[in-house]
């Protein structure tokens, strides 16, 4: 569905936008970007950039950047296994995604553990079932009962099995190779989630992944996560200039090799809290930076992508709720097209399933806001107002009410709206307890659309090949048994 509300949040004037862009170009031209992979240095040298090989530094020329921006498509689709879940990036849609982290945690104590394969599966089933979650991140692949060497691919195969929604794919070892094969088997695209390691450095792992995903026809991200005052300037404008430069360098690389690849400007930027030195992912400045990123990305003709809304709180408390809630609405109104904080706690250190349920409500509210409301004869309801006039309490029984209420009002899944006595009688539960109760209910009821038997077999074959590549012979046999069991 198209959003009616056009992204009105503006924190930058037109002049500000230009100043940031010019500053980014100056960074690219004067300071340059360091690339760990020599192949990348050659590619960019051929395009006319100046390369300092011993320092692995590329100084760009503006025309390379401008041409790269011109060759980015102004819209593209990311195909999901179920086409209904495909994502259209054309500047007028906002999508919500679940986050990913190496541990799962308890919503009340914050204590975390490495997920078991069951935890991984439960998370994926919830993602497939929750109505306001459009996609999922996979950044890592921790599973307590699988060998760590094959964790990323195992989680990815499970993702393709348990949800027909779009998934991102990480830059991790040589996992892109395998993930690309899996995506082909299930007939979906992924979003290659890669970026710069600030300040001004692209690791080989990331550029490798960017080029591999792009070569296979998948859209990719470029961008970075700056810690303001740590890995970039402490000022919002300075960090935006640096991040714009880091993003444009990635865009230039990908477009030089695979012109026309769908590109998303990724952000993971947040202030460093100068009282303690840790990151402040739930801060209001994160909201301001997103509003600016929305404006900057529209100016450059790029789509965008964010790992927020997030919070620094370790538990599902008020802080987590208001930080994520405020960010979600700000981001939605800023035209952030993909926001991926669902279920994440403590600066994306951990995942909390109860929080995923709560975030589903936050996302639903943000999406409802963007839909806006129609003003026409039917919704103005003049006829009905004339008819009812001054009579009391007649609207509830009017047909118009029954016909329109679902389209006009949003119904959150776990927010409490009960009368006090009813709420008290039902156990005085808070939102976390209600979310906790909803989880087994959804997991038992939901049926993910199964893959075809051939696709299942092919995924297994790929997993076996991964095992063979990463593990020695004796272990492999043992593992194959486990994975087919």
């Amino acid at each position: 569905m198209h959003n009616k509300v056009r992204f009105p949040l503006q924190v930058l004037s037109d002049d500000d936008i230009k100043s940031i862009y010019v500053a980014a170009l100056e960074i690219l031209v004067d300071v340059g970007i360091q690339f760990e992979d020599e192949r990348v240095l050659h590619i960019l040298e051929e395009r006319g950039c100046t390369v300092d090989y011993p320092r692995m530094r590329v100084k760009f020329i503006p025309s390379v950047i401008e041409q790269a921006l011109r060759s980015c498509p102004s819209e593209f689709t990311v195909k999901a296994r179920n086409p209904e879940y495909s994502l259209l990036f054309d500047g007028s849609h906002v999508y919500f995604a679940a986050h990913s982290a190496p541990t799962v945690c308890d919503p009340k104590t914050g204590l975390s553990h490495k997920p078991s394969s069951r935890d991984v599966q439960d998370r994926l089933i919830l993602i497939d079932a929750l109505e306001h979650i459009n996609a999922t991140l996979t950044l890592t692949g921790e599973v307590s009962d699988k060998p760590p060497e094959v964790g990323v691919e195992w989680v990815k195969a499970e993702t393709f099995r348990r949800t027909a929604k779009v998934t991102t794919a990480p830059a991790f070892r040589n996992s892109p190779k395998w993930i690309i094969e899996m995506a082909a088997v299930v007939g979906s695209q992924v979003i290659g989630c890669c970026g710069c390691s600030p300040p001004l450095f692209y690791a080989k792992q990331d550029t490798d992944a960017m080029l591999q995903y792009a070569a296979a026809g998948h859209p990719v991200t470029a961008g970075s996560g700056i810690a303001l005052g740590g890995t970039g300037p402490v000022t919002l404008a300075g960090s935006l200039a640096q991040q714009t430069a880091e993003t444009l360098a990635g865009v230039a690389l990908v477009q030089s090799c695979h012109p026309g690849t769908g590109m998303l400007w990724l952000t993971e930027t947040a202030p460093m809290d100068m009282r303690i030195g840790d990151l402040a992912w739930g801060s209001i400045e994160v909201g301001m930076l997103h509003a600016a990123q929305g404006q900057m990305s529209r100016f450059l003709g790029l789509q965008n992508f964010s790992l927020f809304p997030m919070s620094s709180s370790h538990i599902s408390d008020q802080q987590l709720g208001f930080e994520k809630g405020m960010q979600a609405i700000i981001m939605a109104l800023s035209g952030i097209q993909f926001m991926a904080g669902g279920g994440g706690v403590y600066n994306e250190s951990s995942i909390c399933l109860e929080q995923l349920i709560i975030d589903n409500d936050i996302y639903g509210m943000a999406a409802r806001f963007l839909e806006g409301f129609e003003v026409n004869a039917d919704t103005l309801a003049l006829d009905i107002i004339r008819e009812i006039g001054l009579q009391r309490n007649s609207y509830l029984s009017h047909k118009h009410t029954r016909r329109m209420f679902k389209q006009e009002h949003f119904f959150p899944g776990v927010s409490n709206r009960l009368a006090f006595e009813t709420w008290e009688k039902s156990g005085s539960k808070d939102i976390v307890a209600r979310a906790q109760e909803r989880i087994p209910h959804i997991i038992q009821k939901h049926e993910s659309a199964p893959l075809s038997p051939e696709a299942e077999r092919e995924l297994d074959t790929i997993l076996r090949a991964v095992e063979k590549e990463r593990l020695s012979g004796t272990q492999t046999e043992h593992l194959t048994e486990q994975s087919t069991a």
Partner: protein
Amino acid sequence: MQTSDLINNLEHSIIEGDVDNAEKWALQALDEKADIPQAINNGLIKGIKQVGDAFGNGEIFLPDLILSSEAMKIASDIFENELRKTGQNIQTSGGKIVIGTVKGDIHDIGKTLVSTLFKGAGFTVIDLGVDVPTDDFIAAVRRHQPHILGLSSLLTTSAIEQKNVIDALDHAGLRSQVKIMVGGGAITEQWSQEIGADAYSGDAREAVDCGCRLLDSLQGEYHA
């Protein structure tokens, strides 16, 4: 200028994080042949202690702390050089730590914070950066003879490198010379014990307290 005023000024330049003044007053102290150990103890160390406490209490911020430690470094270098000339050897710093993020891991922020706070506590810090190969850690331990080696790891996949470094130190016969502290998002107390590290800390400030305790225990060992 009276020695007490000079020492006051030095202390203030540290508290203010005023690098230029710290240098100026330290040089003037040399000119005026002030008592250097006294200047170190009552000026520099007193100042930096106050800064450390203020940071701990949330009264000042990280950038303040960092500038104070830079001011401290510049003044103490001047004094230490002078003392060395006259054959004296006073250590202004508590101890020496070599620190880095292990191979395959480029997460920088937490490790740098830990280095910074160690500097703030008066340690000499040799920061090897990120993605540091095991051999470089071994070479640095051999060369700098630190009291403590700090290993940071944020990735589950790179955590194993901490064990590799400890094993390599063992092989090189260097393990008993240095206390090993581990930390970073992927690390737990339990892991630290499994791989035979001497200490784990999940937070930079705690890491410094723990480093100071390790140092005390080492100095205890030396005296014994």
